């Protein structure tokens, strides 16, 4: 598909990501529904298939999942005309989604480190510990079961459970486990 973006459109695109950055508590992926609304439904800069593929590719690729934002910007630019535009879209999207949150985190972390003896700072960091640890287990649970509990998925649950057990009890390199998972999937076992 093709799209036409004026300089004002690019400015609005950049501004949109600056705002989403501040709202992205729990990760950039939590703002994906709003990105879909803005880019696909409202502005028609991106097709639905391009949006879905961008998220899927970034999930499959190594590295932080926030890179789906880079692909979205890249594809908006491609639709607007060529590689130069794609590079512009990628840069605006990534700087937009990272600059506010990274600045805020940097300042907050430094403030917290300088005041690490304050009772409030210690209470926050130590108090949150059981919550963020349980969040990790919950995230694994959600990733393994998806949005539905369908019994036909039992081999996937078994694979996720076995992986958790192996990582917990052994020091085997994580890439071996990922490779084994890919192989089991390609052979149609899970």
């Amino acid at each position: 598909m093709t799209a036409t973006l004026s300089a004002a459109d690019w400015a609005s695109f950049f501004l949109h990501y600056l705002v989403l950055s501040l709202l992205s508590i729990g990760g950039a992926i939590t703002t994906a529904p709003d990105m879909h609304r803005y880019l696909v439904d409202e502005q028609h800069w991106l097709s639905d298939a391009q949006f879905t593929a961008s998220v899927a590719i970034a999930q499959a690729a190594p590295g932080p999942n926030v890179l789906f934002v880079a692909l979205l910007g890249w594809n908006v630019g491609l639709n607007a005309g060529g590689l130069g535009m794609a590079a512009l879209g990628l840069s605006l999207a990534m700087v937009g989604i990272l600059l506010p949150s990274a600045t805020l985190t940097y300042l907050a972390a430094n403030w917290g480190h300088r005041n690490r003896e304050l009772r409030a700072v210690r209470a926050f960091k130590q108090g949150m510990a059981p919550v963020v640890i349980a969040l990790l287990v919950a995230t694994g649970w959600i990733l393994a079961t998806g949005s539905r509990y369908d019994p036909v998925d039992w081999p996937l649950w078994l694979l996720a459970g076995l992986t958790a057990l192996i990582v917990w009890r052994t020091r085997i390199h994580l890439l071996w486990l990922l490779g084994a998972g890919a192989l089991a999937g390609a052979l149609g076992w899970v």
Partner: protein
Amino acid sequence: MSSLPPAPAAAPDEPPRPRSLSDLFFSFTWLALQGFGGVLAVVQRELVEKKRWMTREEFVEEWAVAQIMPGPNVVNLSLMIGSRYFGLRGALAALAGMLALPLVVVLALGLVYAQFAGNEQVAGALRGMGAVAAGLIAATGIKLTAALKKHPLGLPACVGLGAATFAGIALLRWPLAWVLLGVGGAACVLTWRRLGAK
């Protein structure tokens, strides 16, 4: 970089740390490139268990901040770790390491995606890797529970708070912000009171 004093050889009693900005950059690049379906499990394994740049307890404390601040959590974590050792330049080096090469990989995958999108084996492999990634992140959480042994609230209270969090997020699928505010807020207030009583 030339203004940095030469890194002293690590004495046995000195905790290990990144030697230089490029050590930070390449360490984080390597972490990110291993992180299929999430980088956190790899960060914990490499930085806490192998390189020993930080203890489990320190890792959990940094992760709490990275999680509560807006922005991608592992990106936040990487810039916090970088800044701990080399200030702003360290934060930027770690951030660049986490993003630069993976960005190239993602773009390359985007280019070949159309040819493989319909391939059943590729779809199967991705499904299998997704399940492994789910297990990795859950195991990271299970291993970090060891950091709760010295928690001011004591282990039973920590188990209760953790169970409430897990139920809210995984079973009831409540929004993250509610759980962080509700359970997290309660946990912080309880810890604050306990720290004051000592």
